[in-house]
Structure formats: structure tokens, C-alpha cells
């Protein structure tokens, strides 16, 4: 077994460290293990890759990516932002709360934290800096809010987790909803207290909008709310599979973008093209991890780790803490989804074997990935927002500004560990 770890860690360090595509690095390491440690069983790799890519469930990934791309280009985020801007005008923090609220809503149709941060950031940042908001505070709220896109269903990470671990996607999506809303509330709570005691961070808007106008603004969002209900309702009530919901969601988004936003045919074609290329880069990591997972599984590595943990009499919560620390460290080097895909073959059998619920674990791993999205130097939410600011906020400043949200997400893991029902309530009641 020690030779396995040498090949695994050494192979990944050399291959991935050379700047090779992560999918190829994982796949090459997997093939080496299959060839030299698993009796030359490399033939299992092709079948495994074929079966994973042919999975109908996994087909939802490009569709949700496409949905996010269409949203990004159709001007819908601008409409939502404008409608929700006055809602928090009397609350300390003002538009910073709007950022979180719009990210929460956007997360309910987009499965990716990156597209959420990019879509909301490109609208909110210029507007708020013009109004005199503290740039770093704005970027921090967008980086934190963007992570909600990954947890609030539909979620790419929960989708991949479900497809690779054969866990119900519908139950996973429902499990992500309450934690997502909890984090949104915690983010807003932080903004409220921070801005209440340091009012200089935000501007005092004297032109207040009346309650009636605010209500009308919110009601004007009905096409978007209908879209959310179409996607989530069809999954939650068993009308459609997640893939069907994603397909119908794309069609509905095209209509919403066309008749409610400013979507053109050219933008639609660009969205499709960009979505397929983005999907290819994600799926390459999936195939590399699938090959590695075959090697890990053939050698019985998860079982061996589980036996070692049991023999060491470690408490499950101690192992969970170790897993969290490993994710925090690896989150500095790998992007979130890749980190999840490459660690699932070992982490899931281990943690489920220790008695943790697979649905709950999916939510916890997603939160850890969200943390990775705002952890420098690889945190993709930070990178995309730095480019949104045209580098007026540096990566280091963005990371420091996102630190409170990083801590809130980490404390969320503790809360979900103490009260797992926050994640498990909806799946147990509705499915």
C-alpha cells in the first residue's frame, strides 16, 4: 500500500505540478497504478470513462453550464439587480445586501459559483464603485455571494457528486437549499454588523424609493421566479429528472432572455459554444479522476484506510476534521470542482463507512469547495472578480476582503455537523 501512496502522491505532484492538464495528470497517474500495481488492468479505464460520460445524469452538467452562460449574456442579471437595488436601502450595508440577495437568486438557476460571481459582479461592481462603496468590501461580498451559486440548487458540484457516487440528485439539490439560504443570511448578518459599526464603508443614499415602488420592482421579477420554480419544482416534485429539468430550464431561459432580457441569436450561439468548451475542460478532469478512481477502487484503498481509521479508534468527527483540513490545504492548489472530483473516490467511501450520511456529506464537500473558490491563489471567484475590477483590487486584497466570508463558510461546516437536519430536513420531508 505504501508503494501506492508513493505513485499517487509522486505522480500527481510531478504531472500536475508541471502544468499538465489536471485531467491528463490524474489519468496518467491512474493508468500507471493500474499497469504496475493492479496487475496491468488498464483495460478497465476505457469502459469506466465511457460509462461515466454516457450517464444521462451527468448530461445535466453542460446544460446547467449553458443555462448560466445564457443568463450571463442576456442582461437578466442587470434586470434583477436593478429591481432588488432599493430593497435594502434602509439597512446598514445597502447594496452589499443586494449583492448577496441577487447571488442567491442567480444561484437558483445557475449551477456554478463562477458564473454567479461573474454575472452579478459585472453588474454590481461598476454601479457600486460609482456610488462610492468601498471597492474591497464590494469584491468581498461578491466573492462570498458567488459561492452560493454552487450550493443553492441546481448545483454543478452536487450534480457531479451525485453522478459519481450514485446518490439521488434530487435529494442532494433539496439538501443544499436550506444551508444555502442559511449562508446567505449569515453573509447578510456580517454585512449588517460591519457596516453598522463602520458606516464609512457604504454611502448614505438620500434618494429613498417608496415601499410601493419596491414591491412593484419585486413583482416585476415574475419571469425569473417562474424560471426558478420550473427548474426546482420539476425536480422536487418528480415531474422531471435533473437532466430534463436542465434541458427545459435552458429552453425557458432562452425565452426569458429573449423576451425579458436582451438575448440575441448571436449571443445564444456564443453561449452554446462557450458552454461546450467549458464543459470539455471540466469533463476532462472527470475522465482523469474516473481512471484514478478505478485504480483506487481495484486496490481496495478506501477499505484499507477505513480499517486503519477503525484500528486507530479515531472518532468519526476527528476524521471529519482531518478531511476538512485536507480540503482547506488542497483548496490552495486546486480549483473546487477538480478537487472534489479527484478526492471523491477516497473520501466518500471512508466517510460513509464511518456512518456519515451520503447526502449530508455531499453538502459538506460542496461547502468545502466553496471555501476553495475564495482561497488564494487558485480561488477562481477571486480571480474572476479581480478581472471584473480591471485589477483595481489585487488578488491579495480580494482574498483579505473575502476572509470573513471564508470564515462564515467554515463555521457553516461546524453548524451543519452539529445540526445535520439543516441539510437533511427537506430531502426527508419532500422525497
Amino acid at each position, binding site marked *: 500500500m505504501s508503494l501506492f501512496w508513493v505513485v499517487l502522491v509522486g505522480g500527481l505532484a510531478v504531472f500536475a505540478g508541471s502544468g499538465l492538464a489536471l485531467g491528463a495528470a490524474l489519468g496518467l497517474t491512474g493508468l500507471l497504478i493500474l499497469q504496475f500495481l493492479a496487475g496491468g488492468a488498464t483495460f478497465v479505464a476505457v469502459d469506466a470513462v465511457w460509462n461515466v460520460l454516457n450517464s444521462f445524469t451527468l448530461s445535466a452538467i*453542460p446544460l446547467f453550464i449553458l443555462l448560466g452562460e445564457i443568463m450571463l449574456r442576456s442582461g437578466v442579471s442587470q434586470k434583477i439587480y436593478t429591481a432588488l437595488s432599493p430593497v435594502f436601502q434602509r439597512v446598514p450595508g445597502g447594496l452589499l445586501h443586494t449583492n448577496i440577495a441577487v447571488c442567491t437568486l442567480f444561484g437558483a438557476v445557475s449551477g456554478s459559483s463562477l458564473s454567479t460571481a461573474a454575472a452579478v459582479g459585472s453588474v454590481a461592481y461598476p454601479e457600486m464603485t460609482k456610488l462610492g462603496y468601498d471597492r474591497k468590501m464590494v469584491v468581498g461580498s461578491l466573492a462570498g455571494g458567488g459561492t452560493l451559486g454552487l450550493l443553492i440548487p441546481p448545483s454543478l458540484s452536487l450534480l457531479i457528486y451525485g453522478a459519481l457516487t450514485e446518490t439521488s440528485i434530487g435529494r442532494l439539490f433539496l439538501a443544499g437549499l436550506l444551508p444555502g439560504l442559511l449562508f446567505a443570511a449569515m453573509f447578510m448578518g456580517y454585512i449588517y454588523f460591519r457596516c453598522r459599526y463602520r458606516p464609512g464603508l457604504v454611502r448614505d443614499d438620500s434618494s429613498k424609493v417608496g415601499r410601493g415602488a419596491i414591491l412593484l420592482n419585486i413583482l416585476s421579477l415574475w419571469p425569473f421566479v417562474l424560471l426558478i420554480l420550473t427548474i426546482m419544482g420539476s425536480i422536487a416534485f418528480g415531474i422531471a429528472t435533473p437532466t430534463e429539468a436542465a434541458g427545459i430550464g435552458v429552453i425557458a431561459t432562452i425565452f426569458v432572455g429573449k423576451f425579458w432580457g436582451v438575448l440575441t441569436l448571436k449571443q445564444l450561439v456564443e453561449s452554446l459554444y462557450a458552454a461546450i468548451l467549458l464543459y470539455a475542460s471540466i469533463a476532462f478532469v472527470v475522465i482523469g479522476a474516473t481512471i484514478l478512481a478505478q485504480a483506487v477502487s481495484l486496490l481496495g484503498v478506501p477499505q484499507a484506510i477505513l480499517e486503519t481509521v477503525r484500528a486507530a479508534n479515531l472518532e468519526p468527527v476527528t476524521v471529519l476534521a482531518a478531511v476538512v483540513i485536507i480540503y482547506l490545504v488542497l483548496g490552495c492548489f486546486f480549483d473546487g470542482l477538480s478537487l472534489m472530483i479527484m478526492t471523491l473516490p477516497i473520501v466518500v467511501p471512508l466517510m460513509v463507512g464511518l456512518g456519515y450520511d451520503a447526502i449530508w456529506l455531499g453538502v459538506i464537500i460542496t461547502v468545502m469547495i466553496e471555501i476553495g473558490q475564495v482561497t488564494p491563489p487558485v480561488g477562481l471567484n477571486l480571480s474572476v472578480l479581480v478581472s471584473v475590477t480591471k485589477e483595481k483590487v489585487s488578488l491579495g486584497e480580494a482574498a483579505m476582503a473575502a476572509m470573513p466570508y471564508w470564515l462564515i463558510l467554515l463555521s457553516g461546516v461546524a453548524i451543519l455537523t452539529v445540526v445535520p437536519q439543516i441539510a437533511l430536513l427537506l430531502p426527508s420531508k419532500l422525497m
Partner: protein
Amino acid sequence: MNDQPIDDWHSTALKRCEKWLTSLFVALAVLAAIAGAMIVGLIGISVAMRYLAYAPFRFTEELVGLLMTGAFFLALPLVTLRGEHVRVLILVSNLPGHVTRRVGVFAGLLGLAFCLWFFALCLPWLEFAFDRTIKTEVGRLLMYPWMAVLPLSMLLTGVAFLMRGLLAGNRKAR
């Protein structure tokens, strides 16, 4: 860090080659995007047939899976050539220029090695499906034309990795 070519004729030949490959790979990526559009259309029609005409398609899930697999492997060479993959660059970006160049060539060769290895594994697998004219379980869709995309894509992706390695080797830090 800005890059500039070491050798003019070598650089020109590589650039011409890269341009030609890009045209080919973009054409494949357009096919991938068409497959993506077909997935959306197929799902929409399938759901409509199920709920409106009460006549669900038997083959939707299988055909969507095949289209998605095809789309991925058709788009992969272009993503590779453009270096749009998920990569860990923290080490490479902190190395001195001449080392970065060598590491870039090394990474290209590793990528080529992976693709060729996977290509070699695909051949007997495809041959098996071809000899037995294997079809999907429910829709009875012939599988080998779809399966043939795998080795083809691996070969082209290997070429893309090699090209990236060569381009990396042809640059020097200013």
C-alpha cells in the same frame, strides 16, 4: 512575462501548423456545439412527447448520453490546443523562464503520452464493439460510430498536447 520566438523559420512553421490545427479543431468544436443544441432540443421534444402526446421516446436517455460523449470528445482537442484546461500553475508560474520552457515541453510530452496510451487502449475496445455490432440496450442504437470518436479525439488531443509542448519550447523569457 512576455514571450518571443527563438528561431524564425521554426517559429513560422509552428505557427502555420498551429493555425491549421486550430481551424480543424474549431470545426470539430462547432460540431460539438451542434451536438449540445441537439441535446437541448431532444430533451425538450422528449418531455413534450411524454406529457403532451403520452408517447415518450425510448431512446432519449441513451441518445443524450451518446451526444454528450461525442460533444466532449469533439471539443477536447481545441480546449487542449488553447490550454483552457484546469491546470495547477502555481509552481510553473514561479519558475525562471528557461526552466518554465523545459517544464512546458515536459508537460506537452506527458499529455501526449497519456493520449497515446488511452488511444492504444481504445482500439481493442472499439474493435470488440465493431465486430459484434453492439447496440444500446433500449433504443438499439448502433454504438461503434459513437465509440470511434474516442480514439480519434485522443489522437488529435495528443497532437494538440505535442503542439503546446513545441510552442512552449520555442519561447524564451524576455
